[in-house]
């Protein structure tokens, strides 16, 4: 999500709500010692909890995307801005005190959730752009392993025009069979070898087995020469110099596959950033809401 101009109405709304709450709170706090159980305190508490619930309902909302309950975008913005409001609301509710064990826990949770939310908003503001520019060949995160299988299969198929692919890589053949679509017609089908010297053929085979294949098998490894773009470029440049021009197209494709692998690695990392913070935010907020509910029930009861 990008926090941009289109958020202005929401921001203003949030500020207005905050202002109103504050306007109510100041005399209240001046008049009496603010506490959660007082009527204003309860109002703040309920408002705060309501906002939390609303923010939390975003998750539930996402489970039923088709229901016409308002655009998800509105929910998201509500989540962000009203989520921001929960902290002041709850502080008003508590009169800036942490109270007892449960309430202190809740406060701590709230602050954590709040902070993680802020961090998340910042991450989701900046990281998508980074991902867009740094990973032009991105695919669907969940499908990265599958795409990698296909890339490997593609590479395997490509190199068949360079040398006889050893039987030691049978899994590639399987993957190739599984990846129906990613083949270019008329391109380096098996049996259609590019002519070159035997030595060159062997050299290409060696390079593929020793460097490229391990990288394709374990593309996340940083140790491979191919894990680094600059080194990879040098590597392929050197390779091209050694191989006859007819193979250059295949090599370029191979290089391209490696580049795609690297980008996928990059995508994975960025994606972890993009969604990793949710591992904090979501569980804590769920806990916050549940325990907050308990607090509300108990507090209202007593």
């Amino acid at each position: 999500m990008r926090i941009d101009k289109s958020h202005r109405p929401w921001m203003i709304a949030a500020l207005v709500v905050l202002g109103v709450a504050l306007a109510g709170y100041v005399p209240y706090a001046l008049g009496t010692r603010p506490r959660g159980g007082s009527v204003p305190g309860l109002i703040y508490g309920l408002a705060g909890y309501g906002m939390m619930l609303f923010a939390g309902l975003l998750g539930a909302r996402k489970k039923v995307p088709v229901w016409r309950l308002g655009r998800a975008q509105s929910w998201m913005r509500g989540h962000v801005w009203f989520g921001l409001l929960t902290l002041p609301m709850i502080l008003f509710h508590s009169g800036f005190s942490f109270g007892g064990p449960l309430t202190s826990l809740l406060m701590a949770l709230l602050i954590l959730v709040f902070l993680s939310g802020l961090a998340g908003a910042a991450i989701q503001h900046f990281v998508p752009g980074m991902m867009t520019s740094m990973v032009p060949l991105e695919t669907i995160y969940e499908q990265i392993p599958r795409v990698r299988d296909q890339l490997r299969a593609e590479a395997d198929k490509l190199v068949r025009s360079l040398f006889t692919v050893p039987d030691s890589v049978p899994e590639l053949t399987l993957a190739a069979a599984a990846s129906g679509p990613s083949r270019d017609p008329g391109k380096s089908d098996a049996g259609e070898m590019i002519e070159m010297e035997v030595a060159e053929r062997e050299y290409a085979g060696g390079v593929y087995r020793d460097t490229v294949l391990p990288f394709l098998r374990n593309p996340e490894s940083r140790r491979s020469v191919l894990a680094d773009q600059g080194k990879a470029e040098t590597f392929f440049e050197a390779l091209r110099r050694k191989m006859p021009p007819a193979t250059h197209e295949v090599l370029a494709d191979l290089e391209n596959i490696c580049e795609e692998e690297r980008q996928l690695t990059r995508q994975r990392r960025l994606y972890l950033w993009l969604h990793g913070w949710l591992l904090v935010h979501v569980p804590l907020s769920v806990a916050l809401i549940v325990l907050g509910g308990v607090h509300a029930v108990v507090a209202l009861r007593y």
Partner: protein
Amino acid sequence: MAGRIRTTKKLAQRIDRGYFKRLFPISRWRRVLSFVAVGCGLAWLGLHAVAHDQTPYASGPLTAAHAVLSRNCASCHGQSTALGRKIADKACLSCHDGPVHSAAQTFTPACVDCHVEHRGAEQLATSAGRVCTGCHSDLKVKAGRPGIASNIESFTHGHPEFAALRAGSADPAAIKFNHKIHVKGDVPLKCGECHRPTGIDDTWNFGQTPPIPPPAVAGTMPSGRLAPHALMQPINYYQQCSVCHALTFDDRIPDAAPHDKPEAVHEFVSRKLGEYIAAHPADLGKDNSPRSPAEWVRFRAAEDEKQLWTVTCQRCHDMQPGASDGLPGVPETKIVRRWFTKAEFNHSAHQELQCVSCHPNAATSVKASDILIPGRALCAECHGAGVANAGADCSTCHLYHDWNKARPVDGQFNIRQLTTFDVRRGSGALLSMNSGGDLER
């Protein structure tokens, strides 16, 4: 040109179209962690619940006095679940008495309105001034008009001058005392040489006689409410005056007369003279004195008493002519032991101050009728609103309850009852106990 051409169709067909139905690590962990987090929270609460401990739910720590009740919310809160329901007064009154504030008050606030619990181990009695000014800024009484001031907003606003200093008031004490002479006279005294806080029981500098315990003074003082050194001890002849103003009455007798009623003085004088003549019969008839010891005693006593009644005693007391047996009367001194009858002042809290900074007139006062306590304005120089000032809360000086009317509370609990609480047995323990329920377990 590399031959790997990406087309939409190719890209799309790389994808397993059902992938989103499976849970992938991040979302799986998100789910797991959510359960874990909620689970931890609930487990924590659950464990307490199993231990019949409701402490976690407290909105804050109880005062020390009540801390023993923490595990059992219902002991004060009862079973009431009604929204915003306050702790019933009953719950408090089962242990405490809360005498009425003023007979003229139009309503009686609930205990918890002023005594806010769950604020930690502070004084439960301390309550914010707003609680008072809530009424006193626009005071209504049951009938008629409020006595002194009806719109006190704060100490600095609307608070009347102290009653002792209000126009026309004078020190009611029937004694003659010139502060000026004592402070600036031949023998200049320091304030502290005469004015001693209460509760100081170290040896009196000048006194030879062990001090008489100060008499209980009637007032609105709750016992023990004041700090030990809060007030000044009332001036006591033996402690403050006798050093200089010895009640000697005859050169032949070194002893001073007791600072007592004239009858006692007369008896003392007579006794001493009798003892003297018995020891010195030579003096009989000397200086035209009777020769009989009895006569002599009578004669000498009359002489000495005259000196006493008219000079020595008269110096401080306004001796009244004798009534029947020729002995004069001494009017009651009426020394004001406590100037603030509705408020408290703690001298020891102000001990860093010079006496004269608050009592500037003391050094110049020549009449005992001068009231030397400072006025409200002087207090307000320090005690005002704002953080830079000493507190000016009502409760700084005033009390709410009329403790004069306090009744002793007859304690009904045993230790177990207070420290343990059986949820199954219901709640509202204090309330039910107080209402005469099942006290014994």
